[in-house]
Structures are given as structure tokens and as C-alpha cells.
């Protein structure tokens, strides 16, 4: 297989890994807690792509049974990720509630300022 074919066939995976690492970078490098949670949800979304990409079949259709079609894409990853999306928004809401509570107690959501305040007291 030529290099170009490999690159085109795996373009989805490369972008998925890029999104995953961008999310990880936001979580690690950004000190702002809302930004960290946005990064975390980017990481989560990249996992959706990682699951659903291998399920696609070229020439297949959405997995809804109809006499007009015979090739369907794999429905199992779709089911798993449907659950993951809903759980993802639940964890995001819980994390944001914690951020609001931290902001109430410390008056800031910047990580280094919170550490400074902890050291003072």
C-alpha cells in the first residue's frame, strides 16, 4: 500500500488522535477550570469518533432495516456512544456545579490563585 493510500485511509484516526491530544493539552496546560472542562469534553467527543469510525462500511447505510438496502453500518458502536454522550453531559454538569461552588468559596476559578490562597491560610 502506498503512503498516500495509508494517509487517506487513516485520516479519520489521525484527526481523532489530534482532537484527543488537544483536549488533553487544554486539561493539563490551562489553569482556568471552565476551560479545563471544555477540554475534557473535547477529549470525550474524540472517543465517540474513535468508536464510530471503524463501524462505517463504504456503501453501507444507517442501521435501519428496510427492504431497499442490504448493507448496514455497524449499529453496536452507535448504541455504546449514545450512552456515553448522555453520561458525558451528566459529568459535565456535575463538574460545572463544582466550579460554581469553588468560585463561591475562593472568588476565583484560576488554579494558581486557588493554590496561593490555600498556602496563605
Amino acid at each position, binding site marked *: 500500500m502506498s503512503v498516500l493510500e*495509508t494517509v487517506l485511509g*487513516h*485520516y479519520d*484516526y489521525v*484527526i481523532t*488522535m*489530534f482532537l*484527543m*491530544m*488537544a483536549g*488533553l*493539552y*487544554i486539561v*493539563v*496546560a490551562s*489553569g482556568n477550570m*471552565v476551560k479545563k472542562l*471544555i477540554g475534557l*469534553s*473535547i477529549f470525550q*467527543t474524540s472517543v*465517540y*469518533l474513535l468508536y*464510530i469510525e471503524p*463501524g*462505517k462500511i463504504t*456503501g*453501507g447505510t*444507517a*442501521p*435501519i*432495516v*428496510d427492504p431497499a438496502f442490504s*448493507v448496514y*453500518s*455497524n*449499529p*453496536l458502536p*452507535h*448504541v455504546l*456512544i*449514545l*450512552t456515553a454522550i*448522555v453520561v*458525558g453531559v*451528566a*459529568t*459535565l*454538569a*456535575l463538574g*460545572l456545579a*463544582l466550579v*460554581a*461552588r469553588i*468560585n463561591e*468559596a*475562593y*472568588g476565583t*476559578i*484560576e488554579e494558581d490563585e486557588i493554590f496561593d490562597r490555600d498556602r496563605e491560610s
Partner: protein
Amino acid sequence: MIAFINVALLTLLAVVTVAIVRQRSLFAAVILSGIYSFLMASVLIVLDAVDVAMTEASVGAGISTVVLLATLHLIKTTESRSVRPRILPMFVVLGTGAFLVWGTLVMPPYGTADNIIHKHVVPRYINDTIKETGVPNIVTSVLADYRGYDTLGETTVIFTAGIGVMLLLGGRRRRTKSGQDGRSP
């Protein structure tokens, strides 16, 4: 043509992600993450995951954005501090990313029909769903019928998260009502 649309949408996703990483205004970052979710929903439609795309558009782009904006209203700040470029996280992220891309090279390329994951339980679901459940949409029949217990567990998770949010934010209203403003000076 569909493959071209897929590549274009994925490239747009990467561009929006770079914008989110570089953005200092939290409001702009939240709106960009809404755009990101809609692009993700479009990619999912191209990948034939129509149910997931609908959920992503309503939950990811709708509810998540609303919850994030509500938080911005509560914390009353819209700017994050400028991030000084950090060498160590960048190094770790690039290293891990290179390893992950190397790992995906052994995966079958996009759209392969004789991929091993299409061989095991999936043909049974596709062939028997009408006979056993009467639901033409296979995703629905697996979610609500074959794997109904998983969905029950999912609702338990949402219930627990809801209780957690209520406990964290409900106490706040009580404290401000009794006169002591919990906010630090």
C-alpha cells in the same frame, strides 16, 4: 464525494479545536465548543450514525452549551488568564499523540467491510431484530430491548449526577438567604 465531505468536516473540526485551545475569552470558547459539537454531529451523519448525530446535536450542542453559559453567568467572569506556553505538557501530548497515531496504523482503513468487528454479534442483531423485537431501527432495538439493563444503569448515572448538582447548588441559595454571603472578599 462522501469521503471528500468527511475529510473536509474533520479538517474543520481540527481548526475549531485549535481555535478553542488558543482562545482566552471563555464566552468565545463556549460558543466555539457549540460549533464543534454541530460539526461533530455532521461527521457522525456522514459515518451513518444518525441516532448518535441527533443526540450529539441536541445534548452536545444544546444542553452542554446552555449549562456552560449558565455557569459563566454564575461565576461572573469571562476571561481566562493567558496561558504561558508550557514545554512539558506540549512534549507529553506530542509524544502520546505520536504513539497513538502509530497504534492506529494497524487498524483497517476507513470503510473496510470485512473488518473483524462486523463479523461477531452484529449480523445476528441485523438479521433478527424485526423477528424478535419488531423495531426496524437496530440502534433502538439494541438500546431499549437487548441491552435494556445498560440503559437503566445510564439513567441511574444521570439521577446521581442530578442529585450531586442539586446538593452543590441548592446549599448556595440557603446560605445567601441566611445573610452570610459565602463569597470570599
